[in-house]
Structure formats: C-alpha cells, structure tokens
C-alpha cells in the first residue's frame, strides 16, 4: 500500500510550495509503468488531505502510457505492461523512455479577495 505514501508526498509537496493557500484541485501524472495504482492514490488522497489547506481539493490523475526502445534491434514502441518485451525481436533488453514518472503537474488555488488596485472614476449617468 505504498499509494498512501504517494498521496502523503503529493499533499506535503503542495503544502510546502503553496503554504496556506486554499487548493481546489491537484493535477498529477501517474505513468502506467510506475507501479502505482491511480485508484488507490485517489482513495488515500482525501484521508491525508484532511486538516491541511488541500482538504476538499479534487485530485485529477492522468495516466500516460509508456514508450520503450529495444537495445538489441533499436525498435521504438508503446509499452503498456510492466514486463517490457520488444514486439519485434522479443528481447527483454529494453530502455524504457517514459511511463514511469510520478509528477505533480499543477494545482488550482483559490484567489484571495484583494482590493482592486486601480481607482476608477466615471461620472454616474442617469
């Protein structure tokens, strides 16, 4: 259940970067080859967000697929499975180019009500 630690890391990183700002949405990328189950992270997120400025925020997860390059035959291909075999020559000697990333992409933050900076004057009509 390392997804609990992953969820905790997401919340910690967001709070560290944004302090007390009220966060309404967190967007993360969980690569399909990362070994992390997106649904479990979603399940844990609300638990660990409780009592932090991230509480109540929506977690949006994208799950990009993987790409690999065979070191034997040089072929580049999509990788959907954690057991990576070259579809051309069946070699397991594959350089995984992407799909293992766990990244926090962006967050949505509630904008504080700040007094307008510009003084506008216009004669009232009517």
């Amino acid at each position, binding site marked *: 259940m*390392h997804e609990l630690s992953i969820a905790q890391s997401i919340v910690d990183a967001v709070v560290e970067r944004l302090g007390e700002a009220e966060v309404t949405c967190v967007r993360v990328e969980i690569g399909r080859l990362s070994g992390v189950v997106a649904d479990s992270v979603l399940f844990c997120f609300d638990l660990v967000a409780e009592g932090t400025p991230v509480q109540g925020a929506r977690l949006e997860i994208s799950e990009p697929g993987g790409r690999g390059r065979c070191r034997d035959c040089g072929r580049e291909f999509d990788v959907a499975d954690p057991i990576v075999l070259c579809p051309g020559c069946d070699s397991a000697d594959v350089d995984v180019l992407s799909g293992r990333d766990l990244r*926090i992409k962006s967050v949505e933050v509630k904008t504080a009500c700040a007094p307008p900076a510009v003084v506008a004057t216009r004669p009232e009509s009517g």
Partner: protein
Amino acid sequence: MCTTCGCGDEAGVRVTVPGEHSHPHPHPHEQPDRTVLLEQRVLARNDELAERNRSWFAERDILAVNLMSSPGSGKTTLLERTVRDLAGELPVSVVEGDQETVFDAERIRATGCRVVQVNTGAGCHLDADMLALALRSLDPPERSMVFVENVGNLVCPALFDLGEDCRAVIMSVTEGADKPLKYPHMFRTADIVLLNKTDLLPYVDFSVDAFLSCLGKVNPHTAVIQLSATTGAGTADWYGWLRDRTGQRVPG
C-alpha cells in the same frame, strides 16, 4: 451589487481608495481559481534525502546494501550468516526494518553485530528519511558495510530509493518460480538476485531454469547467485560479489 467595490457587477463603475476597502460586509467575492504550475516529481523529497544518504555513505567509504524480499524468504538468516562470515574482514552493521517487534534485531545482535531496528508501524516499506534516522543511531564506522533489511514486501520497497549502493532481492525455492513476472517492479530494480534455500530443491517442485527465464524477461542484466543460508552452499559467491562492490577493500 456591492456599492463600494462593485463586485457582482463586472461592468459597473467601481470606485476604490486603495488600502481603505476592508470588506466588512459579508458577500462572496468569487474569483476564478489561479493555476500554479508545479511540475515536480512526487517523490522528490524522498529522492533528495536518499541522495543525502548516498553522499553520507560515500564520505565514510561505506558500502550500503538494501536487502528486499517477501516475508519468509530467508533475509534474516542470510544476514546472520553473512555477518558472521564477514566479521573478520571488515566492520558490518545492520538496519532492520519491520512493521513491529525487535525480533530480527535481537537475532542480528546475537551475532555480535551493531544493529538498529526501525518499526514502520502501518508503513509497508522503509524510506530515505527512516534510514537517515536509523543511521544516526547506528553510527557505522568508516570503511565498513551496512546492510538494510527492508520490510518483507515485494511491492512497495521497490519504489523508494534509500540512498543504497546496491539492491539485493532474495527469493527462495519454496516460492513460485514465476515470481519475477508477478512482481516485475521489484525484480527490475535488483542489482543482484539471490535464490535462497537451494538445499530444499530435492523436496520442492521448483524449476531453476523456469525461474531464470522469468527473471531474464524483467531484468536481463542482474547478477544471480544460488545459495543456501542454512548450509552455506553458494555463499562464497555472494561474499565475492560484495567484495567486488567494496572495491577490493576487503581482503579476499
């Protein structure tokens, strides 16, 4: 519409004296959320601490080995034997990771080896911060070897860099030969795979060839050593591998 700041009527006239509009009146000032780009790795904090551990080991000329396996594959038994057999060559110390109890640490301490136990409670793996904390208590000497026995689990520890020099994954012949395919993330990260309990091969239905074939599909470059922590068969190869890793510092 708020007659002071004009909110609620975006097109209307707004008159404001900067700094004097304190909003004592209750009304929502809804504004669109602001997007902040972060673009950072989720485990950045752990990886940063792991790098710190790695430098700490390097400065002290310490070889750190992360031992991982499922529960019951013989990690602690192998460690007991390894610690005893290497004790005359160079100082060895151990960090034990388990959810609860200090049983394993007591077994290691009985060998005369320096050891600390980390109990993770609900946690299913060690992380770099836990190891840093343990190292402060362990205080291993310079020019030594530190074994970190991770929590028995073939899933979670794979993801967490501790700052180790190498990862050893242990699997025993009483387990299924297809385990590398079932837990590819763990076996993929191994620098060496130790197939333990080979003394039981005559009594169990385990095909070493099938195991090696499965392992080759997830990690074609890993070293593999077959051994028995109980009888000692094959352990010389394991020690040889460790000696190579310590850069010939250990007298053969």
